[in-house]
């Protein structure tokens, strides 16, 4: 019988590192006005969005899914 199973340990590790990166990026993004250095602001803002998107995709496609309970416990 196939059930939904999540790899909680991997998810925690992945999102912990990703969260640290996003926190650093957002801190830099929020620390100064966009007019001061548009390049850095763009990089940090888009970087934050991309990292969150990538973490979501990785979590959804590779860290969760349907596994057979008879072989994976």
């Amino acid at each position, binding site marked *: 019988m196939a059930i939904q199973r999540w790899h909680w340990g991997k998810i925690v590790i992945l999102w912990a590192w990703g969260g640290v990166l996003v926190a650093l990026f957002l801190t830099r993004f929020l620390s100064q*006005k966009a007019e001061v250095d548009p390049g850095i602001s763009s990089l940090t803002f888009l970087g934050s969005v991309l990292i969150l998107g990538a973490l979501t995709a990785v979590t959804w496609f590779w860290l969760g899914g349907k596994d057979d309970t008879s072989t994976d416990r």
Partner: protein
Amino acid sequence: MRSAILVAAALSLGSVGPSAAGQDAVELVSPTAQIPRGMYKTWSLFLVCNPDWVAPDRSTDLANLYRRFKSFGDAIGRDNLAVWFWKRRVSVNDPRLVENVDVARSAEFCRALGRAPSQGPYLVVTTAYPDVAAFPKERAIFELGGLPPADLAKLLNTLTDQLLLQGRVDAAMAAARPLTPPRPATPPTTPSTSGLWIRLLEGARQSMVGFGCKVKLQIDAGPLNAELRECTEQ
């Protein structure tokens, strides 16, 4: 402290000073003197580094700009400092007024800011001390060169309101202004993509900051108590 200063040369002994009346808010120092540090919230530099503006036929425009500067310097209050660079003391009605502008000193600031002199004069507002060797990154730059008198008055009035009431200016307003004055012979231009993108970024930033300021987080874990209050000032 004065709300405005006039940077002029000390070798002006015996010269006619600026119009005797209405100069209470102006402080005279030598060209090599430092801009006062004081306890100001902001410094507003009027930079005339455009050689076109010191041509003899621009004397009237320059005098008008200087009068605007004086009014602006008085109106922004004692916590904010407005700065103008002269070489020496002369009357504002002097026909050779343009020769008295300390273009060289303004040019140093224009170079530090990476701004083309041809697009000046500039009004630069900063919340940190304007050291030409290490100019603060938190600054708002306004191009005054192509502004009609009415637009110049409107801009200075808006900046006066913000400086007096908020102690700072909205940098987005400077970014939203066109980098070059519109030319009558060319059709109106649409805002540049980079300008639009910068405004989007700033909007996102302001939204995040504003959202964070609306959240009040309180943690009570026995002996350890922590509380994050809402922002009082952005």
